[in-house]
């Protein structure tokens, strides 16, 4: 029994550095997501005026949470290299706006969903998947954030909801356009999408 306790203690101590390392990505995502939740639950932010403030704060948190350039690169894949530097910048901005327009409304509609952060799964040396689940009264939805370490900061570059990766989903759509069109056509399509909302 004593031996068992001793070896267990040793094991725990051996794992400590690993645990300490492992905690950072999860905490980063958790902190940012929680700050969004706080904004959503703020009773002072009601009505149309409140909604505007909410949106701004959510976007501020999103900028901290996501690496939109990395997200764009991984969405386009090798097609990214066909874009000129100016086109790349424009693409990142348009893509960000599309995501914002689609999801901020959805997020501001959330009220009493409970978000649990469950675990981290290392994907590679500098990439980790932070797993969470959103619990409502009727269902539980797994949401996984894929984060990459850049300049000692952890940033999200993909969100996987129920097994569906955000960047893969867009990649398939963009590839359809880039298959027989130049990058300018894709940018044009995105500009129209952003403009017409």
């Amino acid at each position, binding site marked *: 029994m004593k031996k068992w306790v001793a070896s267990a203690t040793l094991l725990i101590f051996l794992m400590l550095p690993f645990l300490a390392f492992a905690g950072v990505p999860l905490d980063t995502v958790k902190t940012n997501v929680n700050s969004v939740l706080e904004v959503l639950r703020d009773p002072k932010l009601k009505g149309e005026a409140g909604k505007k403030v909410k949106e701004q704060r959510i976007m501020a948190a999103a900028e901290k949470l996501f690496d939109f*350039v990395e997200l764009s690169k991984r969405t386009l894949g*090798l097609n990214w290299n066909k874009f000129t530097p100016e086109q790349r910048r424009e693409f990142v901005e348009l893509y960000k706006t599309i*995501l914002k327009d689609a999801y901020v*409304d959805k997020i501001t509609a959330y009220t009493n969903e409970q978000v649990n952060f469950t675990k981290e799964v*290392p994907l590679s040396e500098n990439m980790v998947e932070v797993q969470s689940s959103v619990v409502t*009264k009727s*269902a539980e939805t797994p949401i996984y954030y894929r984060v990459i370490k850049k300049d000692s900061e952890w940033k999200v570059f993909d969100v996987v909801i129920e097994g569906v*990766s955000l960047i893969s989903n867009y990649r398939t759509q963009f590839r359809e356009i880039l298959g027989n069109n130049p990058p300018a056509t894709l940018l044009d399509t995105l500009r129209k999408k952003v403009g017409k909302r």
Partner: protein
Amino acid sequence: MSRQGPTRYRESISFAGLTVCLVFLLSLSLGLSPAHGAATATDPGITTGEGFPKAEKPADETSLAPVTVQEKPSDEYGDVTEETATSGEGSTIADPIEPWNRAMYHFNDKFYFWLLKPTAQGYKYVIPETFRIIFSNFYENIMMPVRFVNNLLQGKPDYAGRELVRFVINSTVGVAGFRDVAKDGFEITGRKADFGQTLGKYGIGSGFYIVWPILGPSSPRDSVGWVGDLFLKPTSYVSSELISPEGVGLYAHEKVNYFSFHIGDYETLKKAAIDPYIAMRDAYVQYRKKLLEQ
């Protein structure tokens, strides 16, 4: 069948059920359950995109390609490397009948906005949330045979056992499946399993993409699976015929009840998408692939 038949059965089973339940709880705590996951079947019908060797499939999640550290950190808009570009490459599905599928997609789109959504909204307005949750749990509970049989067919008897335990607990303590006591109280969760998935595990490819009117995205394999599962759904036996007005009515109620919790989800997908048809197809492929890998 006499009306009190099932009730009497339930009363007589409750003690036996509790014993079974205890045995399973013991086996769970002894760690018998996580003896799975090794057999990860790849889906031959879903072809992996370029640059992602198929042999690596089982390690898919973890091998998201080690990204080379960027030499020039300041140049964040620089070129992507081959490795970054092809990491986490998604899957695609053949779509030889795209014109038909697109037509059906548009039909389903109208069906949603003109009929399903208003119905679900009215239903949501009239029926209190508590009751809708009860219905949702009830339908989930009675579909146990589908998950039980398919977990067995997929060589996951531990999960089949869990489904059985869940059914016993929820049908008794949870009052005919009105509450998910097994999850809320005992933290016993089940595993989604359907016949399309079973066929996939047996190495049958999904074939190609097909959109059915009303039923939505599918493939020949998953369509066969859907019909197969129909035989295991208790709701199919409300009448002597497999497809009856009563059965369809129950199916419709189940769906309306489900959508009453999901109004706006499809709208978000559509709003976020550049081409909603492709977005939907890709989501379907990714979702099914994930279920197969579990």
